[in-house]
């Protein structure tokens, strides 16, 4: 039997990736995804959270797709020299979904909630470390200047973990009918 030509991604994966990428871009446009903090970078971000959630729900490919689109928009929209560089803005974001997915997949058997929280933290740290690492390699930011960003990175990781747990737990509750979520359309 001849199979239809489809390169691995189901309709569901494409749609979920598109929808979550839309949220990521929207958070950037409305500046809701930026939380002002008193340090050099000026803003903590939650724009990478859709990539983590996408990876947890539909796998690493979806996470990468969302991360890639988020990176592309942050490159085009960038108001800071740090992100006006494709290697800093796009490349690290492709990896967020992959690390987030695998940390979730490994820990899922042990405890679902812990797995979600850890994948939020891991995804978030992947973003921070790789972006700053690339910025450092390109000489955009001296390594010493990155020290004040550490508390922000921790805060971002915690926020990402909270949102990931809240959203995925609520969504899976709705899907299976447990957890008291009502399905409104």
């Amino acid at each position, binding site marked *: 039997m001849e199979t239809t030509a489809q390169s691995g991604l189901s309709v569901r994966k494409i749609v979920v990736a598109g929808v979550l990428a839309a949220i990521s871009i929207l958070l950037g446009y409305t500046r809701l995804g930026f939380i*002002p903090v008193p340090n050099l970078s000026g803003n903590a971000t939650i724009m990478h959270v859709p990539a983590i959630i996408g990876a947890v729900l539909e796998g690493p*490919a979806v996470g990468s797709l969302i991360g890639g689109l988020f990176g592309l928009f942050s*490159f085009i929209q960038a108001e800071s020299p740090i992100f006006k560089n494709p290697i800093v803005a796009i490349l690290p974001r492709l990896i967020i979904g992959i690390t987030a997915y695998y940390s979730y997949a490994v820990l899922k058997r042990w405890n679902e909630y812990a797995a979600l929280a850890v994948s939020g933290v891991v995804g978030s740290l992947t973003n921070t470390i790789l972006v700053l690492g690339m910025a450092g390699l390109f000489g*955009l930011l001296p390594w010493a200047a990155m020290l004040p960003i550490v508390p922000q990175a921790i805060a971002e990781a915690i926020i990402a973990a909270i*949102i990931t747990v809240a959203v995925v737990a*609520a969504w899976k509750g709705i899907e299976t009918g447990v957890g008291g979520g009502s399905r409104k359309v």
Partner: protein
Amino acid sequence: MEEFEFVRNITIGQYLALHSFVHRMDPRVKLICFVFLVGAITFTTSYTANAILLFVVIALIRVSQIPIRYALSGLKPAVPIVILLAILQITFYTSGFAGGSNCVSFFRWGPIDVNSCGVQLAVVSAARFVDLLILTSLLTFSTTVTELTLGTEQLLAPLQKRFNFPAHELALTMTIALRFIPTFAEELERIMKAQVSRGADLGQRGAFRFIQQTRSLLPLIVPLFLSALRRAEELVLAMEARCYVGGRGRTHYVEFKSRPSDFVALAIVILFAAGILLFPFAY
């Protein structure tokens, strides 16, 4: 109520309908040119090459008939951070791009080391930023979002055949994302108004109120994600009900045609980018 109005303020794509050569270029060729120029800007380190690149991107803006102040509109809010970064780079970098082989030190006091490499790093980083700002504006002002999406898909299509790279899927994801941004903006407005009417304090923005900010964010973000995922389910159902199959053999409503002048432009850009990257500039 003004702080809840997102839909009105969101403009996706900044296309300016003009009739310049840049506007009429085949989007696929334009994207390749864009990638080569971004590459040249990102990887060159010399003063001379950056001056040439700055001249070239300004010339391109002139050719495209886009008002230069439009292209530079993103520059003003970025000035403080550019200056701050430049100061950091000048004072703390002991070695620049060259790895510190022949830096001339001007001033040294404790950890502070002002030398020629740090200065070069600061100047080149700022120039790169301006170049890329103009270049990305040039692309978004001269190409519609649809052209960009279809162009990307058709450029990546050979990769799909050879390596199963999901080019079509990527384009579809991009289209869905762009289609849903206004819908979600509306949704977000509704959620905000609903939460405020229940007494939620969405808080004032400020650098020292970030804990309060974060807490007020959760009752907005979580419902937004859930409603988005719900919409995704509906769209999946609708697409599967219509037997959607992506990938190979799909035809397009819009077909791009390259003209000879497109290839000439492409050849010039590739030669120029290669020249910038390979020519041994003295400074």
